[in-house]
């Protein structure tokens, strides 16, 4: 899996979760939940699978990918930052 798709999935994972929570605490529109919920779930799965398949990912990176919401960004950071793991 390419880094570009991981980056996109990581962004969708976080943004969709923020939209879901903001929606829940304010207007709570059903259609927003209906679209953002599955979008968040898909992005989460894409991040987990991408981290699991990445040859450069350590076991720690693969576990951190399971973090809800921010897992994608954490993995992205660890995979692109040469100073980290």
């Amino acid at each position, binding site marked *: *899996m390419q880094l570009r798709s991981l980056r996109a999935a990581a962004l969708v994972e976080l943004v969709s979760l923020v939209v879901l929570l903001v929606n829940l605490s304010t207007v709570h529109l*059903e*259609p927003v939940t209906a679209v953002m919920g*599955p979008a968040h*779930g*898909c992005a989460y799965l894409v991040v987990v699978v991408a981290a699991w398949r990445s040859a450069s990912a350590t076991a720690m990176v693969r576990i951190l990918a399971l973090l809800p919401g921010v897992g994608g960004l954490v993995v992205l950071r660890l995979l692109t930052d040469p100073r980290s793991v």
Partner: protein
Amino acid sequence: MTKLFLSLHVLAAIVAIGPVTVAASMFSPALRRVRRDPGDQDALTTLRTLHRICRVYAAVGLAVPVFGFATASSLGVLGSPWLIVSIVLTAAAAAILALLLLPAQARELAALGAAAPVPALSATALSHAVDAPPGRSADRRDAPAGREAARLAMLTGVFNLLWATVTVLMIVRPGSTTGA
């Protein structure tokens, strides 16, 4: 809103899954052609394009389950057995595509690219070669040339069959009371 979700769901299925089924089916014959004549640059370009179609439209295809779930939740049918079966079959098809088909295609392209006399190996094939799980490509490369093409053809067949089954389930909806 349900109608909008359903329209986007069907549109995404037609636009994204259609090309993947066709391109994946054309990949193994194209691979055999390249294997028969390794100097055939046109065939190699075709093979790369077919892989690219599979990869890009697989990503676009993520819109299908997203809008599918949106439609199902606004219709209130998420608990229906026909839908649960469809979801499981779709997950299986997605797993075959993302975890078996696309990596195998990338591996074949990387092997061909390394053996080809031209230096113009595409960046995508390279990055996939780097990203492929280690230790699995070496043993496969020694396999008889036709075997990997046959394995790809089988995986594609299973993938297409799963999608056809899901499509029929979506239309027939066994046990549904919401009308034809």
